């Protein structure tokens, strides 16, 4: 597939929204006896979305709340399978969607490094080899052997970021987590992301902070109501975005 590292063709995600509450066996049986079916409406969070990303690109994804940005990242990370359309991805993905999503708050930081590493698809041995470097980058210090429930939310995010980004991925997917942790850690994580970019990783970022999109990205995809409104070089699209929906004061 030429040199596209990510390619989406007519991807549609429709969520089924029941009109009534989720059926139980009981209700289902009653309905069946009364010959009434549960009615649903379908809501397309993504509607015929097609685009491609070239290796080494940094792509920003913008759009208003509920536009489908997070859903799009989940499709690329293979969390949600498209109802229709095709997804092609080449290379290892580091998903930074919800930091610490796979943490068990009763376990210690160290145990969670292994758990989260396994969730990301690494072998136990691989994690054991990189334990030191993960611990060091997270800056958790002696808290590493305390249960995560005793951590501040910033500490949890730091640990999550450190695990997910310890080895260089082919594709880095980031959903609004650039503002994670304190300024010190923000700098540290931004530095690492830039480093990976310079070393050839492809990066996808969702953010409402247009400045950070402008700084990091060369290409922008503008989503609105599950449709691709426009794509192109960062300056063009950001200008359109600012003028159309948010006219300059």
């Amino acid at each position, binding site marked *: 597939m030429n040199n596209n590292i990510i390619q989406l063709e007519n991807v549609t995600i429709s*969520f*089924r929204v029941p009109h009534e509450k*989720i*059926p*139980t*066996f*009981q209700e*289902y049986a009653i309905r069946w006896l009364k010959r009434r079916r549960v009615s649903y409406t379908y809501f397309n969070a993504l509607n015929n979305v097609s685009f491609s990303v070239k290796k080494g690109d940094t792509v920003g994804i913008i759009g208003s709340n509920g536009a489908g940005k997070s859903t799009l990242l989940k499709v690329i*990370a*293979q*969390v*949600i*399978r*498209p109802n229709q*359309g*095709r*997804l*092609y*991805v*080449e*290379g*290892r993905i580091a*998903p930074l*969607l*919800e930091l610490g*999503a*796979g943490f*068990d708050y*009763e*376990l210690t930081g160290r*145990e969670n490094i*292994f*758990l989260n590493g*396994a*969730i*990301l*698809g*690494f*072998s*136990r041995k691989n994690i054991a080899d990189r334990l030191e470097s993960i611990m060091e980058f997270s800056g958790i210090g002696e808290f590493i052997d305390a249960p995560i429930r005793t951590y501040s939310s910033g500490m949890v995010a730091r640990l999550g970021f450190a695990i997910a980004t310890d080895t260089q991925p*082919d594709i880095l997917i980031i959903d609004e987590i650039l503002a994670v942790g304190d300024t010190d850690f923000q700098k540290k994580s931004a530095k690492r992301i830039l480093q990976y970019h310079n070393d050839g990783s492809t990066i996808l970022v969702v953010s409402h902070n247009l400045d950070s999109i402008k700084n990091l990205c060369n290409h922008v995809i503008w989503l609105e109501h599950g449709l691709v409104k426009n794509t192109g070089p960062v300056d063009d699209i950001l200008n359109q975005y600012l003028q159309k929906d948010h006219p300059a004061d």
Partner: protein
Amino acid sequence: MPKYDSAKRPPLIIDEFFQLIRYRDLVILIIENILKSRYKRSTLGIFWMLLNPLLQTIVLTIAFGTMFKSSLPNYAVYLLCGLLIWNYITQTTQYAMVSMTQGGGLLRRIYIPRATYIVASAGNGLINLLVSIASLAIIIFFLNHPITLSWFFLPISILILTMFTLGFALLLSTAAVFFNDTVDIYQVLTQALFFLTPIMYPPSILPTEIGKYLIWNPIIPLIDIFRIPIYNNTLPDMDIIIKAIILATIMLIVGWTLFTNKADQVIYRL
């Protein structure tokens, strides 16, 4: 470089299998964490795992043992064999349903094989079963119940039981995601089935009008393939073994096919 193409995905029943193999370290880690969290807080630690079935057996033996003194000598051995298998099947399936409906949120946030929690539940149940066999051995030792070569059949029994339990857990977990009263209905049904299964009593005490329906109770051959080698010290009859194998195979195929084909929708429902 790993490649993913949704148009070239292998059939779901195969895809999920290979994904689980790829994520085997995760499955093992989850099992370890379940065991750890359950026994960490108890000061008795691993001994609690041994003690629990022992206490259960002692109480029930005191209550019912004398009733079946002539028909079931060494009643405690008979009872515990049945209880272990009953608990293995029901506790594993319930654990799987709960971990799928409550812990399943992770499946919406990050990619892991959809069957991860269910396979881990089955693995956890299997370990509990193996540990409980140690308490069974203690009782056998105290009662001077004979141990014979028929024990060598037990690995096969446990394999059959595990196939059945995993398949059943997959089936029920799929149902639990689509109908949220599955767990409640299942609990009521299993309680009723418990008394219709000869675990605390010998099959002979049932009146013939009821007894003749026992061949429709699918749990009986599954208990027999484990209990007969230990309690009766012989191999189970061939027709019992074949019944159990057919049952377990069908359950695993049905459960696996249903789960893997519905797994993508599960994400929309959780």
